[in-house]
């Protein structure tokens, strides 16, 4: 199992993501300027502030050479996980439905929250149980998930809502407590909470490890 973790200029959490992936397999950094995905089995778009995020979060990264390759990889069914800024990038790139808006409090917020697994049938939740609660931190200014009502209804019917904030834990005003979603084919998953910051009890929680373990299990199977 080999994970590829994309590094944009301005990525911050890519080393953390590599550490989390390395608990489950091999991992290497994919440079934003390269089109070559180096034969990885799964791609992680990490958190941070790609290209500074001065225009609109995630807006520039979608045009990078590596994202062209990632989009093709995703179209071919390859598993792709976007975390925080990575989620924003995937939404901007049209690989995931919906958009991320500024938090209702309009401030950066770093907080450990409870997240529930809604759909365990994705490459990144296969090792989780329905309704399982994961303690995972969020840290973002622009994490309020939004999609129009009719889109959301379709998404819910199609199992595209993968994670929800547990009751009373919604930190940012996301519609219907949505914390993470997937595409119709379910191979592309994005979420605002940071599972890579929850892979070690010493630093607060190991609940996020199951996302990476899920991907490893899928490839092994």
């Amino acid at each position, binding site marked *: 199992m080999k994970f590829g973790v994309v590094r944009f*200029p*301005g*990525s*911050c*959490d890519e*080393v*953390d993501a590599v*550490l989390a992936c390395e608990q489950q397999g091999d991992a290497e950094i994919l440079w934003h300027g390269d089109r070559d995905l180096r034969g990885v089995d799964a791609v992680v778009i990490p958190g*941070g*502030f790609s*290209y*500074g*995020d*001065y225009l609109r979060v995630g807006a520039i990264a979608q045009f990078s050479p590596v994202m062209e390759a990632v989009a093709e990889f995703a179209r071919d069914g390859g598993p792709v996980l976007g975390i925080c800024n990575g989620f924003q990038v995937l939404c901007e790139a049209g690989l995931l439905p919906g958009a991320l808006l500024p938090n209702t409090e309009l*401030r*950066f*917020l*770093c*907080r450990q929250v409870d997240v529930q697994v809604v759909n365990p049938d994705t490459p990144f939740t296969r090792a989780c149980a329905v309704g399982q609660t994961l303690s995972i*931190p969020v*840290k973002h200014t622009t994490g309020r998930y939004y999609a129009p009502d009719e889109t959301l209804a379709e998404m819910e019917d199609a199992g595209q809502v993968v994670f929800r904030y547990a009751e009373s834990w919604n930190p940012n005003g996301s519609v219907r407590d949505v914390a993470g979603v997937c595409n119709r084919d379910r191979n592309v998953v994005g979420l605002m909470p*940071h599972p*890579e*910051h929850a892979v*070690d009890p*010493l*630093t*607060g929680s190991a609940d996020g490890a199951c996302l990476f373990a899920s991907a490893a299990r899928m490839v092994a199977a």
Partner: protein
Amino acid sequence: MTTEAAVWRDLGLTDSEYDLICAKLDRAPNGLELAVFSLMWSEHCAYKHSKKLLGRLPVEGPHLLMGPGENAGAVDVGDGLAIAFKVESHNHPSAVEPFQGAATGVGGIMRDIFAVGARPIAVLDSLRFGELDSSRSRYLLDGAVSGIGHYGNSIGVATVGGEVYFEGPYEQNCLVNAMCLGIAPQERLTRSAAAGVGNHLVLMGARTGRDGIGGASVLASAELDSEDADKRPTVQIGDPFEEKKVMEACLELLDRELLASLQDLGAAGLSSSSSEMASKGEVGLDVDVSKVPLREPDLEPFEIMVSESQERMLAVVEPAQLAAVEAVCERWEVRCTVIGSVTDSRHLRVYDGDELVGDMPVEALVDDCPLYGLAPEQPAEQIYPAPRRTLAPSDDVAENLLALLGSSNIASRRPLFEQYDSLVQSRTVRRPEAADAAVLQLRHDTGGSSAIAVSIDGNGRRVACDPYWGTVEAVLECASNLACVGAEPLGLTNCLNFGNPEKPHIAWQLSRSVDGMADALNELGVPVVGGNVSLYNQSGDGPIYPTPVVGMVGLVPDAARAAAVGIGFREEGHTIAMVGTPQPSLAGSELAKLRGEPLPTSLPDIDFAAVERAQDAVRDAVRAGDLASAHDIAEGGLLVAIAECCLAGDIGARLDFGSADVDWAALEPYMFGEGVGGFVVAGPPEAIGSLAERIPLDRFGIVGGDSLRVGDGARLDVPLAELRGAHGRLGGAFS
């Protein structure tokens, strides 16, 4: 030598300093040279009023790898690794524009850290504002916190701790001190001395603009007054994305040994960075300002030399390595331009193309600024007015406790630290308010179990009461915080924030404070690795409280043990005890402040040995895994500390202070008084029992219930929810 147009005075130079410059040059300086001299000879760069005093501080210790004089100091944390760290002020820029002032303060201190080859891993901040009922204070607080978060969050360095106090004397002069820690293989630690005649001088990073022109002399070394708005254009603007790229490029360049030396551009920009590199390397430098990439086309040569545009680094590169350096910079999309060369002239020569526009001996710039002795004089009486009364004196214990918990200096800092990423880089074992010190594991660096702990401290009001003992308290308190997570202190960085040192009573504060710091550090055996001085923090309303801020870094042998002990009580039935023999007194305490009592002119003497014994005992017990919780008793005294343990653990406590007919008035100093050297600890009864065999301790309670109760509850029985409500009051400052 003075003339009618004594422009040097506007630049902050005295007539005699100007005469001395003329003597050093053997002629009158031109405009560019005068601008450079005025910055290099400012308090900010030359420490002309503080250098003599700073010589009293200990600067050697067994773990010291790099001491004062470099961009940052560094200590040995084992496994071939170094931790570089430094605290620096950005007070005056933050008073003018809090968001950018604080943001560029964080950016500046990070550059100091990666300039020595260390990857920044954590930031802490120390903030002071006027009372929160002032809209200006809330504006400054909001701006500074947003600015710190903006920079640290965006660049991927965790903000793991800090402190903030609100006191009247900071109303016009807020303090924004930022501390950064970085990690490096010891062999990568880099010094800034320029070397190798003929080597290239390479400027990396952002283009140079007009921001920060004159910052060091106009902003950093003059008293602020009501015309601050006029100075707004001189505050620097931060771009964390640019800094992130510059940082990654520099660390890669150092890793690949492509640089001969590296220096960040901070106060006084190219002037100070180039002359300091030349001075340390005992060489000369030729700089061609026409080569410097500009943000706006019409900058004068002198403006290019003094601009404080952010996110720039200066490196010395051997000609053979230049192509490789350029390739690394290109990959990181970082601008990199040869702007000059190393010479043997011992002069800083400034060219504009072929034209020589400035020629100054390096020694004159860096070493020849006159140093001034201070004329300290103890004032006959307390110079600070009594704080405004916000709490009527009462013997109602619950009322006093709730007022303290909700007071701006004690209430939970959660509304601040939740605006900071405290997790990035996966080192944070102890997050803000989980323990008295932040704990950062080194497992990803060493493969081992060790961690470092870090805390930043300084209570200006206590120092205003007694500059000597107040400063001793700050240092000991910092060490106590480290002891609570099992850490042994390795080194300290300081930022001395004071008023105008040319005034005798401020000189006295400064002198006594440095004496206190020196004595405390000598007792602890901890060296100063570097720091910063910020003087002239005063306005028409008078000086700030004297505020020495100290940041201490310690080593924790086993991160898992530290992670098991926090502030919070953990388990019903655990014994609660106080370790140590502090001499708590209400004088100068938070309760006295709320009651509007005048500041005393002295604090009780401190028994160093007793404090150290208590610290050693707590540290050892934490390291042994005997304790469930450990918390230093600080602002608000014993009862506040216990309430904080309850809140952090979400469990109550039952206390017993003796017989039922206890004299409550006499007990007040014990419950609410302040004095360093006491700890609230909790653990299984047998663990507390064995700790009692080592050190005297006072067992007075049991963990349990959902309230904080004393005795039968007649005098105090406050539900946790009510404590939490009071403790959460700071959130209102951000709405």
